[in-house]
């Protein structure tokens, strides 16, 4: 349904997306995870036809976005990160206009507009202007405009940024409804918990490259049952080696900098006294301790040595 093959996008000497490949099928949600500036939006822009790729191929419902753009776009719906609405046009007119942009006409358009208004919970505000809506209502209308033509492939670019928890939950339900209706959903986010709860499979992207890919379970398996322990305090770099000499089984140093030491190991809580003892013996003090059980966020930390939201 959606296939991205060896996608590269360069701006002069800067490579924003570097040889990215992934694919997803009908009735699946594929997550594209990464920090801000990782290359997620550039990938989405290339898929949606907003910018041409430097090299590589993108296929939507079997049509190449560059060579057969009109047919590819007919199967594509997009919910951009920032609102893409006419705030001075009533909600119902927004939906109608975007429906017409996708070729819907007459009674089919009217019926679909009514259905979408019900689906996004704005039927009673259909004739109001979006500029009078709350942020959550605007987000829902933005989503409605993206699904007005029942797209086979739906792109959601960080759809929950700046959204309150209640609207976020409503949005998740709408995304799952599209998935259940058979759409292939590409969901970009930098919230790992969203990806874990929504996505059937996902790819982690950093500096324009995919650094891990698979189902949530497969990715968690890469991490094993190991916890991630992070210590912040007054100690020099090189403390990790001292701790490792304690003989803790499967301990691995993720990063070791002045005042910040990140380690991974099985059952980290059992080893805390020994680790603190090593710090004290080295003449350092610990001000803050963070112990996280295995999840996608810790996997990203393991893979890149940095926090996802840095």
């Amino acid at each position: 349904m959606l296939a991205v093959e060896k996608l590269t996008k360069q701006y002069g000497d800067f490579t924003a997306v570097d040889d990215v490949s992934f694919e997803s099928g009908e009735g699946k949600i594929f997550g594209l995870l990464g920090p801000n500036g990782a290359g997620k939006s550039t990938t989405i822009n290339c898929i949606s036809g907003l910018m041409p790729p430097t090299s590589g191929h993108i296929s939507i419902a079997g049509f190449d976005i560059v060579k057969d753009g009109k047919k590819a776009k007919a199967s594509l719906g997009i919910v951009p990160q920032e609102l893409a609405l006419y705030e001075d046009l009533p909600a119902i007119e927004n939906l109608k206009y975007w429906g017409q942009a996708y070729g819907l006409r007459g009674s089919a358009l009217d019926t679909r507009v009514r259905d979408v208004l019900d689906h996004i919970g704005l039927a009673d505000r259909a004739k109001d202007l979006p500029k009078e809506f709350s942020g959550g209502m605007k987000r829902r209308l933005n989503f409605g405009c993206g699904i007005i033509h029942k797209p086979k492939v739906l792109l959601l670019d960080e759809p929950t940024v700046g959204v309150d928890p209640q609207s976020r939950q409503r949005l998740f339900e709408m995304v799952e409804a599209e998935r259940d209706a058979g759409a292939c959903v590409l969901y970009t986010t930098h919230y790992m918990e969203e990806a874990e709860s929504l996505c059937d499979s996902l790819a982690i992207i950093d500096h324009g490259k995919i650094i891990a890919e698979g189902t949530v379970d497969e990715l968690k398996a890469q991490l094993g049952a190991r916890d991630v322990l992070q210590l912040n305090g007054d100690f020099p770099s090189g403390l990790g080696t001292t701790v490792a000499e304690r003989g803790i089984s499967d301990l691995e140093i993720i990063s070791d900098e002045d005042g910040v030491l990140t380690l991974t190991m099985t059952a980290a809580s059992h080893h805390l006294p020994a680790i603190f003892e090593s710090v004290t013996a080295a003449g350092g003090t610990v001000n803050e301790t963070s112990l996280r059980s295995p999840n996608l966020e810790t996997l990203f930390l393991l893979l890149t040595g940095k926090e996802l939201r840095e």
Partner: protein
Amino acid sequence: MSFLLATFRKDIARWRQDRTAILLWIGLPFMIGGLITSMVDQDGGVGPMGTLLIADLDDTLVSGFVAGAFSQDEMADLIGVQQVTPEEGTRLIEAGEASGFLTIPEGFQDAFIDNTPMTLTLKTNPSQTILPGIIEDITEVLLDVGFYLQGVFGDEIRQIKAADVPDTLADSFASDMAVQIQQKIRRLESKVFPPVIEVEIVEPPPDEPSPDIALLFLPGIVLMALMFSAQGLSADYWKERDSGALRRLVSTPGLLSRFVLGKALAAAVLMALIGGATLLAGFIYHGIPWDKMLPSMLWIAVSGIGLFAWFSAIQMLLPSRKAANLVTSLIVFPLLMMGGSFFPLDVLPDWMAAIGRLSPNGFVADKLTLELTSASAWTFESRSWLTAMAMTLSGIMISAWRLRTGFARKS
């Protein structure tokens, strides 16, 4: 085609929400045009600037000649004459409601004929400076003329006055007097009258009537409305870009060229409405024949799209909304100046008018002027229509190209 119409309907619906802008685009040229027209209008509005009160106590032919002299030709535009009684005249001049009060005493005609002294009383309004002086000068000139007439034809005037001619001899008396006066004129004409100067009055040919100056301002005022609205409407591309709508548009299969054409069509309707309102007011005010309305409306609608298309292209070629607003504003005002919106091309020096006609709005205004001032309707040449359409097409092509090449992307 239906996406074009959908875009057209969408823009019309959106502009209906912004009635203030449309009223301003109509109102501003109306205001400026109204001021200009009222200043230059030669026929309407400018009444006599001062009032001369005359109390004619003599009520004779000669006293009537004096009173009538103030109502002749251009003098009537300057001074309104009001016949009053002495009491009423005194009251009005003391109340400061007139420029002067002239009293012609009883016996003025006899005194004039007999060449005896007589006093005319002229009271002037001290709060006015120019008009009372003019009235005073005219009165003195009239008296001088009377003095010379009396000096030259005094004998004949006295003979006529003293004549007690029976009806049977009246005709021969009148002819004698006529011959006598005629001979006197012939004797004097070489000394009194200046050499004969022949004046050839050249009237314009019937198909080129000389239009009044206020009418010449009308096309420029209409173009001012079009230019302001074209600039404002074209800025909508930035508004749509900032709203993210253009970004979404590029991801749809809807053709960008139809989107641009739909916007141009909506702009044409709005500009026909805005320019048409100005034009309609001009038609009514100047009494322009109604058969010129349709071609004039079509011309401003077609030209309006051209102006909109080019303003849009300029807006989209610039790197930011601020830069676009600034540059288009910097373009509008010199073009209005050059293109005849503040001074009609026909009253500018030839070289300046030639440059003005090369500007897009000057070109449109020039053709509209010809239509409004010519004897017949539909004066627009096919070349003019083609030029306007070429301007439109080129602007639309540049706009569509910019949409495809990154303008839609919100940075």
